C-alpha cells in the first residue's frame, strides 16, 4: 500500500482518546546494524531530532520482541524526506511472528517523500489487529537508492483491551463513570 506521511497526522490521538496504548516499552528492541551513537535509544527517545542510522547491508531490520503476545493495532514511523533525503525509507515491510524464524509479512508500505508521521495499520486477514510475540520492521529500500537509512521515531500502538470489558463496561457519562471505580 502507498502512504504519504503528512504533518497533521497525530500519533497521540488514539492514546488521548483512551483507545490505544503505546507498548514499545514492554518490548525488547534490536537493530540489524547501527552507527555508534545512533541506535535503539535514539530511536525510542521520544525526540524527533535524534535518529537511528543503520550501518550494514539492506534490508535494515528493527526487531521488536514482547514478553507476551501483544495485540498490535498500528505502527507509527516518523520519516522526513526533507531532512533525511536519501536516508528516508522508501519501502517498508512489516513482518510478525513468534520468533525470528517464524515471521510472515503482513504489510508492505511504500513511502513517497514522507514528511511526518506515518501510521501503518497492522491487520491480519480478518482485518483485526494482529496478535504476535514479535514484530519486525524491515526497510527494503530508501529514497534515491540510498544504502543506509535514518529512522527518527517508531511507535507501537496496541488497543486498550479491558479484559473484563463486558463486566466493566466503560461508561460514557460522567454520572455513571464516577461511581465505576474507587481511587
Amino acid at each position, binding site marked *: 500500500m502507498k502512504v504519504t506521511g503528512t504533518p497533521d497526522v497525530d500519533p497521540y490521538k488514539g492514546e488521548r482518546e483512551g483507545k490505544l496504548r503505546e507498548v514499545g516499552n514492554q518490548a525488547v528492541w534490536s537493530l540489524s546494524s547501527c552507527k555508534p551513537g545512533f541506535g535503539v535509544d535514539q530511536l525510542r527517545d521520544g525526540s524527533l531530532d535524534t535518529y537511528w542510522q543503520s550501518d550494514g547491508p539492506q534490508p535494515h531490520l528493527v526487531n521488536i520482541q514482547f514478553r507476551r503476545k501483544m495485540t498490535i493495532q498500528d505502527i507509527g514511523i516518523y520519516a522526513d524526506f526533507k531532512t533525511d533525503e536519501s536516508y528516508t525509507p522508501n519501502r517498508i515491510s512489516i513482518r510478525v511472528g513468534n520468533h525470528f524464524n517464524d515471521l510472515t509479512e503482513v504489510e508492505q508500505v511504500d513511502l513517497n517523500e514522507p514528511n511526518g508521521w506515518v501510521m501503518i495499520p497492522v491487520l491480519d486477514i480478518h482485518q483485526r489487529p494482529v496478535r504476535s510475540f514479535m514484530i519486525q520492521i524491515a526497510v527494503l529500500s530508501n529514497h534515491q537508492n540510498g544504502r543506509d537509512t535514518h529512522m527518527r521515531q517508531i511507535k507501537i500502538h496496541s488497543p486498550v483491551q479491558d479484559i473484563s470489558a463486558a463486566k466493566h463496561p466503560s461508561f460514557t457519562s460522567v454520572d455513571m463513570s464516577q461511581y465505576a471505580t474507587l*481511587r
Partner: protein
Amino acid sequence: MVIQEPVQAAIWHCLNHYDYNDAIFLAERLFAEVGSDEALYLLGTCYYRSGKPKQAYTILKNKGVPSPQCRYLLARCCLDINKLSEAESALVGNILHKPRSQDDMVNEFGDVACFAFSLLGKIFSKTERTARATESYRRSLKLNPYLWSSYESLCHLGEKPDPVKMFQVNSHNYIPPENVASSQNTPTFLQVSNTGSTTNTAVTPVMSDYCTPVPDNSSTLSEIQQHLFSSPYVSSQPGNTTEIITPSQENIMDMTPISNPAITVSIMNLSSSAPAQSAKKQFRALHSLSPLTPNFGVLPLDLSPAVCGQLSPLSHTSSSNLLKVPGQEIKTLSKKPMTRRSQQQVTTSHPKPAVFSQSGNTNSNTMKDVQSPVQQIGNNGLRRSTRLFSASSSSVKENNKSPTQKKFAVPKAPAKKTKSKLSRTQQELNEINKAEMGSVETKPPPGVTTCQIQVELLQKQSAEGLMTLLQDIGRGYLALAQYDCKKAIQLLSSLPPHHLNTGWVKCQIGRAYYEMADYQKAEKVFMELRQLEPHRLDGMELYSTVLWHLQREVQLSALAQELTELDRDAPEPWCVTGNCFSSQKEHDVAIKFFQRAVQVDANCAYAYTLLGHEYAATEELDKALACFRNAIRVDPRQYNAWYGLGMVYYKQEKLMLAEVHFRKALTINPQSSVLLCHIGVVQHALKKSDSALQTLNKAIAADPKNPLCKFHRASILFANEKHTEALQELEELKEIVPSESLVYFLTGKVHKKLGNTHLALMNFSWAMDLDPKGANNHIKEAIDKRYVTDDEETGTGDEPSVLEDPIEGSSNDSSLMEADDVQLQAMETDEEL
C-alpha cells in the same frame, strides 16, 4: 557557670529568630567551651531546627545522651532519618539495656514525656506493633490532652478513642511547662517544676510582689529587671538586684504555668547572672527590648508598661502554637492587671521572648504532624484571647486611667458568637480588674488571694472551653476515621461557624463527602476550602481525585499548577499533577509524577495507591500489585489500596482473591456502595447470582444515588433471564442517568431477548446516538450484526423494511440511519458471500 547563661540565652534568641547560622556557630563554641549536657542539647537543637537532623543525630550519638531531652531529641532525629530501632532504644531502651516501662518514662522524661510517648507511638505504628502504639498514644494523650496528633493517630490505627474522655482538663496534672530552655540553666529548676500542682500559699507571697505598685510608664528595662529582682516576700524594693531565691522561683513557676516561664526564665537567666553584674549588663545589652517578633505582632501589643498583660498573653500567644492558648491566655489576661503589667515589663526583657518562642518552637516541632488543626485551634485561641484581651485591656485602661499609646495591632475580633464561658470570663475579668485595682490600692494580700482564685477559675474555664471544642472535633474525626461519613458531616457541621470556616474542618467535611462518593458536594466543599486557604496542601490530593472522578480536567490542571508552585517538596502537588495527567489518559506521565510523590514522601500511602491504579491502567499488573501492597504496608487502613488489589485480581480473573480483598476493604469502610457494587459483580462472575443481588440491594440501600448498582443489578437480572424486572430497573435508571449510552444498550439487549425488535433497535440507535465514537461501538455493531443474522435466518425480505421503518421513526440523526443501513447492507452482502 557565668559564661553559660548569656551565651545560652543568646543562642536561644538566635534560634527563636531563625538565625540558624549564628545559633549553630555559637552553640559549637559553647559546646567546645563547656561540654555539658545542656550545651550538647543546645547544639543538637540548633542543628535539628535548621533542618539538619543527620548532623544532630551524629553529634548526639557520638557524645552519648545522658539527659532525657538529649534522648528525646535523638529519638526525633532518628525518626526523621528513618532509624526506627535506634529511636526506640533512645526512648525506651532495648533488651540489652533494660527497657523502661511507661511509668519509668514518665518519671524520667518529666514534661517531655507526653511528646516522648507520641514519638514512641509513631515508632510502634511504623513497626507494626499496633497494640503498643495505641498504648503509647493513649498515654501521651493522658499526659497532655492538647496533643491532637496522638488522638488523630489513634483514630488512624482504627481505635475508637472516646473524645470526651481524652480531652479532659481535670483528668491530668498537666501544666504545659515552657521552661524547657530554663531547664538548661538549672536542673534543679526542672525538678522543681515537676513537682507540679499549684500551691496557693506559695503563690501568695509572689503575688504580692506582682501586686506592688507598678513602675511608671517610662521605666526602662533595667528598672524592670531590678523591680523583678526585688524579693518576693518583701514589698517592692526598686533598685534591689538581689537574686531571687529558688523557692520563689518555684512559686512563680507553680503559680502561672504559662506566665511562669516568662517570668521564671527571665528570673532564671537574670538571677543566675546576677552575681556578675557585668555579665548581667552584657546580658541586658544582648537582650535589649526586642523588636516586634511575630509573637508580639499577633495580639494587640502595647509595649507601654501601663497596659497590662500584652506581653504575657503574647508569650502565651507564642505558646498558642500549643493548643493551650485560649486557656492560658485568658487566664493570664484575666489575672491581675498588676501581675500582667509587671510581667509585661519583665517580659519585655529579652529572655522571655527568647524562651517563649523557643518553647513555642519546641512545641511547634512536636506539633509538626498536625499543623493545621493546631493552627486552627491556635487561631481560635487567638481569637478568643483577642476578644478577651480587648475587653480586659479596655477595662484595665479605664481602671488605670493611664494614657496608653497603644498601637493596637488588634486583629479585629470577629463578631462571632462567643461561647458563654468566654463572655462569662470577660465579665469576670472586668470584675477582677476592678477588684484587683481596689485591692491593690488598699491591701495587697487579700487582693492577691482573690486574684489567685479568680485566675485559676478562668484558667480552668478557658482550658475547658478548648477541651469542649476538641471533644466536638474529636467526635467528628472519629466518625470520619470509622467511615461513618454522614455522622461525621453532621458532627463537624455543628461546630461554630468560625471553626467551620477553617481549612482543616472543611477538609474533613470534604473528605467525608468523598468517602461517600458524593463527589459534587465534595467538590463544592473543597472549592470553598481553596478560597479560604489557598496555601493548604493537606487534603488536596483528595480534591484532585474528586475532580478526576468528575473529569474536570481544566480545574485539575489549574490546581496542579498552583500547588506545584507552592511547594515542590510535598507529595500532594505531585499527586495532583499525576491525577491531572491520568484524567487526560496519559498514564505513563502520571506514573512518573506519582513516583515523584512517593520519592518525596515515602510515608504517603495514597501516593502508592494512585500509582498502583496507574499501573493497573497501563496493564502492568504486577507493578500495580506491588504498589498497592506498599500502600497497605504504610497504612493498613487504606481501604482503597485493598480495593485496588481486588481490582487487579479481578482483571486477572482471580475472582476468589478479588472477592476476599474487596471484603477486606469493606470491613474498613462498610458503607461504601461502590465496594458493595464491585463485590456484587464479582459474586455474579462467580455464579453466585443470588448473593450478588443481595449485595447489590445492600449497596442501593446504602447509597440510593449510585446508578451503577442499579445498572449491575439490571444486567444480573438480564443474565438470569428476569427480563421484566431488568427492564423495570433500566427504566428507573433512565430517569436517573438519562445520558448514559450503555443503559440504552442494555435495554436494547433486553428487548431483543424479549423479541421486541423495534424497541430493541430504538434503544440501540439511542445508545449509538449518545456515544457515536464510543469504545463500545464495536459491541453495538456486533449485536446489530448478530441481530440481523438471527432475523436473516427467520425472515428474508421483510427485514430491510422492518428495520428501516423503526430506524427512520426513531433515530434523529440521518447519518446514523445511513450508518445502520450501510451496516445492514454490508452484513447482508457478507451473508451472501
